[in-house]
């Protein structure tokens, strides 16, 4: 499976990273190199092997339903590039 430039652009858009035409060409070859490298996994017979989802053999711990967090809006917006009246501000989103 090889990536073409259109795919690079599509993926960059999905990842919300602006790429220049020049970068697209470079990325095309770099990403294909990496994909070629990982291609060797197809040699491995994984029939009937469950995918590993976590390195710890544990199940999800569940926490009690108590309110013990929040209540510090000032800290939430403290590092925001743009905020007002406790809100984060972003360029207008049109639905």
């Amino acid at each position, binding site marked *: 499976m090889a990536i073409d430039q259109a795919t690079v652009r599509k993926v960059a858009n999905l990842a919300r*990273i602006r790429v220049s035409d020049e970068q697209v060409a470079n990325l095309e070859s*770099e990403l294909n190199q990496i994909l070629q490298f990982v291609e060797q996994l197809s040699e491995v017979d994984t029939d009937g092997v469950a995918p590993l989802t976590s390195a*710890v053999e544990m199940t999800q711990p569940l926490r009690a339903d108590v309110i013990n967090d929040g209540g510090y809006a000032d*800290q939430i917006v*403290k590092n925001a590039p743009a905020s007002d009246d406790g809100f984060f501000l972003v*360029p207008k989103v049109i639905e």
Partner: protein
Amino acid sequence: MSDLTNLTLSDAREKLRNKDITAVELAEAHIDAMQQTAGLNAFIFNTEEKAIEMAKASDVKLAKGEGGILEGIPVGVKDLFCTKDVRTTASSKILGDFTPTYESTVTANMWADGAVLLGKLNCDEFAMGSSNETSFFGPVVNPWQRQGDDTQLVPGGSSGGSAAAVAARACIAATATDTGGSIRQPAAFTGTVGMKPTYGRCSRWGTVAFASSLDQAGPITRTVRDAAIMLESMASYDVKDSTSVNVAVPAYEKTLTGDIKGLKIGIPKEFKVDGMPEEIQALWQQGIEWLKAAGAEIHDVSLPHTKYALPAYYIVAPAEASSNLARYDGVRYGLRVAGDNIDEQYANSRAEGFGEEVQRRILIGTYVLSAGYYDAYYKKAQRVRTLIKRDFDQAYEKVDLMLTPTTPTAAFGIGENIGDPLTMYLNDIFTVSVNMAGLPGISIPAGISANGLPLGLQLIGKPFDEETLFRAADVMEQAADFTALPQLMAK
């Protein structure tokens, strides 16, 4: 001064407790050492005032015979750990001047035990790299140089700042993180001890995530004993991290008995890769002899899927990273580069904020998770991961530990491999399967390369059996008697 900065953690602790020195003296000596070694670019943010303040508080406790296991010990913190009111960037431009309002669990544990923060340490951007050249703050310089050659070398990565600072005596110990080898590989490149505990041993809460199923914090120190003391402080069960495992943290230092008689050490044959340099092979053999001489049994073991650990890693880690790094969008914190609409703002901010390697990995990760490719790549890699873990489980039915080299080469020059991602990725060839299986591993300085650079050996342990790992590492450390010093250390 150099007396103080040459102290190991355990020696400094004794001198502090005996009131031979004060925490403030120790902190001042290290602040001076940080200045002397500033050219290494290991520290990106210094917290000198805070350090003196913390040291003063430690002195008050020490005077009363109180204090924790790290009381008055000056440490550096990899900039991946969020530190309250101290800028935290993961060495990325995208975090801008982000200053957390919270403290990571690992560092909070250390402050509770009395450690003193000297500053934040450089690393590869979002811990993605094996040479510390992807940092937005520029590369870290390895304090070691080749014999008769002042070429600047990389300290390894991603915890290059941590390893360089400890090697150069700019701090006594440092926190680090390891996703595919990022503690052990830089430790090997800098003649230091790097310890990656079992996945789930240290809380990931408050540490900037790279690949959640692989990331694990650990210490870089100058001795195995110091690593044991550091890990005891850093490790804890944390209800805020669902993958934190609720097992007691032992007093690791007490396990350093020097006795490994009858311990079964496995030598995984698949690590004998084609083209392994002679001196690495010889070092490995030397390690086997040391352990044998100490009474351990050596066994050949097989980890048949070793070869596939690296390619599987380069699917799993970027995939998780592509999702973990989606939060850096210029809305709530960090860099914002304006655009005509929100999507352009995202794309501009992320293009400007992330460096090349990070972008590359996000794109690969996005691709392997995208519709139609998920099964062929991500799921396949996770299946292979099951096989890798199974290999280890089977081998551990026969042996207690395994011994391998840490890296295929010694440190290389800054810029030498930067244009070639794949060659760079091969740095992790001996370390990455340990992360894939979630096991503990330690690298200790074991020898010097032909051109005068440190080389490391790696011991790999059973899950949550860091004690045996430390015990064997301590024995091997004594046998190796590594006393060489880097050229660019604080005087």
